[in-house]
């Protein structure tokens, strides 16, 4: 009886893993399938011959390296700026009791519930006279704002995990409050900071709606914008599209490994954010 239960449990886990990985496996499979086999071996699990031709083409003869670079710049800048701002705000929320604290937390929470698609039109209108449409800087500004609330909650929970005694000891030892923050608290929060950077990077890397709206030229396109325009232009070359897709997957997976340990803390801190 117990053995059957254990077997069923393992099989169920395997089924979940298969369901989670199959789409990604298929992406990789098509990206290494030579064009001449794509249709004849359409639903075979692995092609009889594999090729890296699609990757070579995408890397050498398409704009994807450019899109990749743009996305990397935007996502890294967003991640670092948002984490820095959230670090300070999260510290204030964690360490000070001040009038208005509840309002600030409430405001941050509300922005998480908010239909961001509502802001597409007004943000476009407001950024355009500032020259921030069709600009990577503009995207970074928007992404930072969207990600700061969640990053604040995350950083606050990391700060909450550091005993107050430590900075009090430092302040008695002769440090100012800011000195204690910089020399004692920050070094101890480094893993939390890394996790926050990872979360924000992942979010910025996958953002699409505002990128579509704000970016109009190929040179400024981020990966989703580039990939979607590629799809509508050359919707026949599946191998190349999927090779590009695999490329988009790589940084996301790397950052996933970085934040894996903090997933539970992160998702419960935000509770609302995807």
């Amino acid at each position, binding site marked *: 009886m117990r053995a059957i239960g254990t077997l069923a449990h393992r099989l169920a886990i395997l089924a979940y*893993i298969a369901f989670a990985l199959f789409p990604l496996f298929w992406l990789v499979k098509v990206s290494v399938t030579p064009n001449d086999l794509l249709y004849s071996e359409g639903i075979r699990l692995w092609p009889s011959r594999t090729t890296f031709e699609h990757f070579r083409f995408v890397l050498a003869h398409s704009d994807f390296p450019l899109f990749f670079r743009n996305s990397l710049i935007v996502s890294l800048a967003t991640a670092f700026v948002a984490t820095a701002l959230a670090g300070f705000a999260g*510290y204030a929320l964690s360490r000070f009791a001040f009038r208005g604290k509840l309002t*600030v937390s409430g405001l941050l929470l509300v922005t998480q519930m908010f239909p961001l698609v509502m802001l597409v*039109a007004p943000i476009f209108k407001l950024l355009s006279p500032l020259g921030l449409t069709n600009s990577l800087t503009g995207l970074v500004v928007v992404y*930072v704002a969207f990600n700061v609330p969640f990053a604040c909650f995350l950083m606050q929970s990391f700060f909450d995990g550091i005993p107050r005694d430590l900075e009090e000891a430092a302040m008695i030892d002769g440090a100012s409050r800011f000195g204690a923050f910089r020399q004692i608290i920050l070094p101890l929060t480094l893993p939390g900071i890394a996790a926050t950077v990872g979360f924000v990077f992942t979010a910025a890397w996958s953002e699409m709606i505002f990128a579509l709206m704000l970016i109009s030229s190929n040179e400024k396109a981020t990966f989703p914008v580039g990939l979607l325009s590629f799809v509508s232009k050359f919707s026949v070359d599946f191998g190349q599209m999927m090779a590009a*897709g695999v490329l988009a997957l790589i940084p*996301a997976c790397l950052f996933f490994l970085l934040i894996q340990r903090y997933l539970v803390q992160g998702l419960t801190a935000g509770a609302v954010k995807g």
Partner: protein
Amino acid sequence: MTPAPRRPFLQRLGDRAEPWLYSAPALIVIAAVMLVPLVVGISYAFRDVQILNPFSGGFVGLDHFRALAGDKAFRVALVNTFWWTVLTVLIQLLFGLVLALLLDTPFRGRGIAQALVFLPWAVPTFLTGLNWAWLFNPTIGPLPHWLHALGLLAEPSNILSDPNLALWGPITAAVWWGIPFFAITLLAALQSIPSDLYEAAAIDGANPFQRFWSITLPFLAPVIAITVLLRTVWVANFTDLIIVMTGGGPADRTQTVASYIFTQAFKRLDFGYASAISLVLLFLLLAYALLILLLRQRLIDRDK
């Protein structure tokens, strides 16, 4: 009691200001990029704002809302939003709960298994959408053939172009992508249930099924309630998969209110009308949140 000597004004001001100095940069960015556009967006709802029309910008009162009342596509979108949200959240919850229960029992290789099943969450949503669109494409994807072989499809066709089935495409992708979220949240809740409760129940003679009903579910209920509430709002606003996979088609059969807003703003560049729809969506979500809060209050009052 002697009163404490009054401290210098500047020093008191400095103490008061300190937390605000730390949070100011974040608050300024949020105000500039979220609150200001929100107010501006609300004003657009009552104005004629079209990017392609240089003479637009005038005040039109409630014209947009009148147009909206007669907009058949909007009514379809409302119905679609309901089904899209309810189905996505419920299926995610069901699969997420089962996964959390599976992962709550220790077994060899649990760490790796956990990392693998949570991986979809890290996949960018645009890629999730494209990937599933390809899987549903009979030319290169296996799904239509499998569904046909199982007798679920009369022929291996693309369900994304079938008006009656198309909504299931984005729902499947959303479920795939969103299961980890529920699983992680519920797993954290499961692991906070003290294990001696289970031991006590086992000693009292409860079988595993009874233990689940009498201990696990009551403990999870509040977490499930809050997660479902927040996720419902989030999924209702989540447009990426629909835009990537179907663009709202075929014949608006997968258009939700949120994707309709995007279509109006992005494709038609009619910001006024898009903002009017946004305002309606905001009110619907507020009404939903209010309803939930009232229900919760009723339940709490009844428990007293």
